[in-house]
């Protein structure tokens, strides 16, 4: 290849880029929209439902305290501990429910696969940072809260390149 034409081509392709829209997602102002409400699992069919694997959500009215989720996590991150709760549920005689330490969790979702009672799912919540390690431990009541999902930006491809929003 001719050296001069090579340089010209390279410059041209760089200059063209000036007219392409910026790809950046302006994060705290803009938030991505995800598919569905997070990763879920259907134990009857034995397959999951696609979604982001963020923080877990625990349905207190379904959890039986069977500890299968905590056993599943044993070989992975040992993030789940079973703790006593004050609530009384018919299906949960021992009144124990999972408590998840997000300082250890790797968000693999294998605990969701292990839960046979549709009690543990994952959500689109990924903003979990905190100032202390203690605050990363989510108690069963904290896990029951449904996150506010306000992401509305999607990756779009237009005539002037790919953009967010």
């Amino acid at each position, binding site marked *: *290849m001719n*050296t001069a034409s*090579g*340089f010209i*081509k*390279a410059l*041209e*392709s*760089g200059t*063209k*880029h000036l007219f392409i829209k910026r*790809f950046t997602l302006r994060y705290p102002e803009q938030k991505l929209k*995800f*598919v*569905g409400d*997070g*990763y879920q699992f259907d134990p009857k069919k*034995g*397959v*999951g*439902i*696609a*979604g*982001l*694997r963020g923080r877990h959500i625990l349905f207190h009215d379904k959890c039986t305290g069977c500890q299968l989720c905590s056993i*599943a996590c*044993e*070989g*992975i*991150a040992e993030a789940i501990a079973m703790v006593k709760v004050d609530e009384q549920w018919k299906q949960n005689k021992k009144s124990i429910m999972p408590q998840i330490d997000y300082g250890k969790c*790797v*968000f*693999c*979702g*294998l605990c969701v*696969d*292990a839960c046979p009672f549709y009690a543990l799912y*994952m959500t689109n919540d990924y903003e979990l940072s905190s100032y202390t390690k203690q605050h990363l431990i989510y108690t069963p009541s904290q896990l029951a809260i449904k996150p506010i999902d306000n992401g509305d930006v999607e*990756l779009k*491809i237009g005539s002037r390149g*790919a953009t967010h929003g």
Partner: protein
Amino acid sequence: MSSLDEKIDEAKKLSMQIVKESDEDKLMTLSVGPQHPGTGHFRFIIKLDGDYIVYVNIDPGYVHRGEEKMCEYRNYFTNIPHLERPVIHDSANITYSYSLAVEDLIGITVPRRGQFLRAITSELDRINYTLYWLAIYGIFLGHSTMFMWPAADRELVLDLLERLTGHRITHAFNIPGGVRNDMPNNFKEKCLSQINYLEKRLKEYEHIFYNNPLFRQRTEGVGILSKEDAIKLGVTGSVLRASGVPYDIRKVEPYDIYNEIDFNVQYMKTCDSFARAYIPFLDVRESCHIIRELLDKMPESGDVREKLLSNIKGPPGESFKRVESGRGALSYHIVSDGTSRPYRVKISTGSFRNILALPFLLVGSMLGDMPPIYWSLNYWPIEADR
């Protein structure tokens, strides 16, 4: 005698005491790394004679994590999350061959739709890895545009992976028996439009980087690894194919669905750094074709996962499976003694086999040629150390 003469005499005596330079003193020893020469913690020691490298000693092992030993304490499913840590952005491929080996051991086959989904994630991850590698290659040669572009365009692939698997990296998606979940709604259209756009962008890469005379001058004819040497050294993947050997595991030992997929094995005969830099790029293009073909041929519905017990016992025996990852052949050898944990797991990665070529390529070349040669080997220290 004047005081000046005395001083001259003294100086002469002193100069006699200065030790003369020996041959060894002409050499300068440089330690490249271990703090991040780019891809991860890795060190190589080089000795320089002037501007020429005369001695190279590679010293990997700074990021050894004991993955193989860890496998022996976990069951076949809980091994997945930690096994993908060595190459977080090519995690679909590193768990692919593990899943294949476990399935071979247990004796099951994955449902057809599951095989397609696996192949799609594997190809997406190959693109993901290669664009990341290309970004660092660019910045190492001082081409900062080539750092920005792939880093941004990688987002196209990451977005798809996030939709499909739930994570941008470390997907924990491949699992013995199939994949964790089916495709979300309208994934196919999204995937096609983003892959088509990525292909358009790849053309620009050629103009600004690969056909750029500066890049060509720095890489063409640098670090020649002849065909015979490449075979003798046992390098794999893009390094082997850049030396003129059309060897791709997807072609020679097709796993899952790859025997039904029509694609070309990319190889070049120039054997230099340029070829080794260009082959992964051609692979990305080929991956785009493969993804389109996979989406086209994929059955409309069906199972994606074979249901297995979470603490399944592997029958006593061995299995060996390999896949073509972003860095070459990636193989697992699993030995089972009949319990729910593997007795021994051996991981052989492309990175480790490719880095063995580094001393052979560097000796005799100039120091300035070190970055293009080191990078062209497609080396990922964490994967090599496991």
